[in-house]
């Protein structure tokens, strides 16, 4: 029985917990994106991953371009405020990357189902859209009381959930605050979890709008200051918008991307 999160290096955490072929989610909704952890997956040449993320952004473009992913489960793929993700786009257009596509609401509910230990979640959505024609994980379900036709989406069945947080204490209790997206569900819905943090502190001080993940539901905590850059970590650093813009030129050109990969 797990009583505490183990505190290790990110390198060890990724080596020990992420296996080729795993279903892996790295979450963080524009805030606290676990970029360092994603790049460690690339460095360790993980392969055949099913990558899950509501908003695949530049770190997913990197993972896809580096050949780590067999499949992507997502709801919006772009470089926010800049434009396209060219590695992502090309991989889909050439058919190299299998996709399973949802709406944000569908993905959020799949995370909720996982965190709840349920095989599926119910929502009012997708009716009339083309998504159910192309996505097997969207099915109709009738309310047993009213007969109303609603939509069911399955739990994600994550092997590993990876997030970045501001702080953990020495027992591995984790606290993140600000806009916290689906990070709680990412950890609770995964068999194993890695949380990179800005810093390890003696005591967590409760904050407004915080998500707390108690020590016994977190597998590994890794201290990685700046681990969310170029995204932001509230009360630590701001978004590096220039890096998002600069990514466009690298991603657009296969050679430049290959050169970038060498520097990682």
């Amino acid at each position: 029985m797990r009583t505490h999160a183990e505190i290790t290096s990110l390198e060890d955490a990724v080596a020990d917990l992420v296996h080729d072929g795993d279903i892996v989610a790295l979450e963080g909704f524009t805030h606290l994106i676990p970029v360092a952890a994603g790049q460690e997956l690339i460095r360790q040449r993980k392969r055949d991953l099913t990558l899950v993320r509501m908003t695949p952004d530049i770190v997913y473009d990197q993972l896809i371009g580096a050949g780590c992913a067999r499949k992507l489960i997502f709801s919006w793929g772009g470089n926010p405020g800049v434009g396209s993700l060219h590695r992502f786009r090309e991989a889909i257009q050439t058919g190299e990357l299998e996709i399973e596509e949802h709406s944000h609401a569908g993905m959020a509910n799949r995370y909720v189902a996982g965190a709840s230990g349920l095989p599926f979640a119910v929502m009012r959505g997708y009716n009339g859209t083309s998504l159910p024609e192309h996505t097997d994980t969207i099915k109709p379900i009738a309310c047993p009381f009213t007969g109303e036709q609603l939509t069911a989406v399955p739990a994600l069945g994550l092997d590993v959930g990876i997030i970045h947080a501001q702080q953990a204490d020495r027992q591995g209790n984790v606290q993140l605050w600000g806009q916290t997206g689906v990070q709680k569900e990412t950890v609770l819905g995964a068999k194993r979890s890695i949380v990179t943090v800005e810093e390890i502190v003696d005591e967590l001080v409760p904050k407004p709008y915080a998500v707390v993940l108690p020590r016994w539901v977190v597998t590994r905590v890794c201290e990685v200051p700046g681990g969310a850059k170029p995204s932001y970590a509230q009360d630590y650093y701001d978004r590096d918008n220039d890096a998002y813009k600069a990514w466009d030129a690298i991603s657009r050109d296969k050679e430049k991307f290959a050169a970038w990969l060498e520097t990682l």
Partner: protein
Amino acid sequence: MSWEPDEMMSVAAARELRDVTACFVGIGLPSTGANLARRTHSPDLVLVYEAGAVGAKPPRLPLSIGDGMLGETADYIAAVPEIFNYWVQPGRIDVGFLGAAQIDRFANINTTVIGDYDHPKVRLPGAGGAPEIAASCGEVIVIVRQSPRAFVETVDFITSVGHGDGPGSREKLGLIGNGPTKVITDLGILEPDPETCELVLTHVHPGVEADQAREATGWELKVADDLVTTDPPTDEELRELRELVAAR
């Protein structure tokens, strides 16, 4: 003062937010329009962003829908599942703004793919929050530049349902919101005909002719008998808008 077409779009969008309580905002022109409304006629307008900020009061235009400033100025921050399940799904948001890569005569929207889904010509970002915003917000305002490539006879993929295949479609699908009520373009404003649900050009922006809008539309665009010209942006609107855009 003179103005750019994008400025006219933002101003027209802002004007639609009079007497609106809560508005679901994306990045780009919708965000500009909503923030302009809050700075001019609707200081109490509640801006809801999909990354969790409810009642955000950004002093500048946010860089992303999860910009830290949105959370810092919000009345409160909800988790993302709560945003969709407790706020969007039950219809608690009056107005949702959407963009489009393609839109058809019934205001159905494609932001997923150009060409065949399995062998796409151009892969677009995908659905994001749009399908449920389109389904459940009280009304939807679409903001999109008008061109024959965007205004098409048939969308390649229905990402977000407008008025389906016409009258009664939304009811049949069980969608609780009223769907798109305005499509604001760089040329004018289109509104669904109350009988047929087909988009009709009801406004042209100052200096635009109805024929320009017809030419920029991939179907035979109907024009309202009482076509009106949008009021040009006022000096105050332009001043506030430019201040907002300049603030970084």
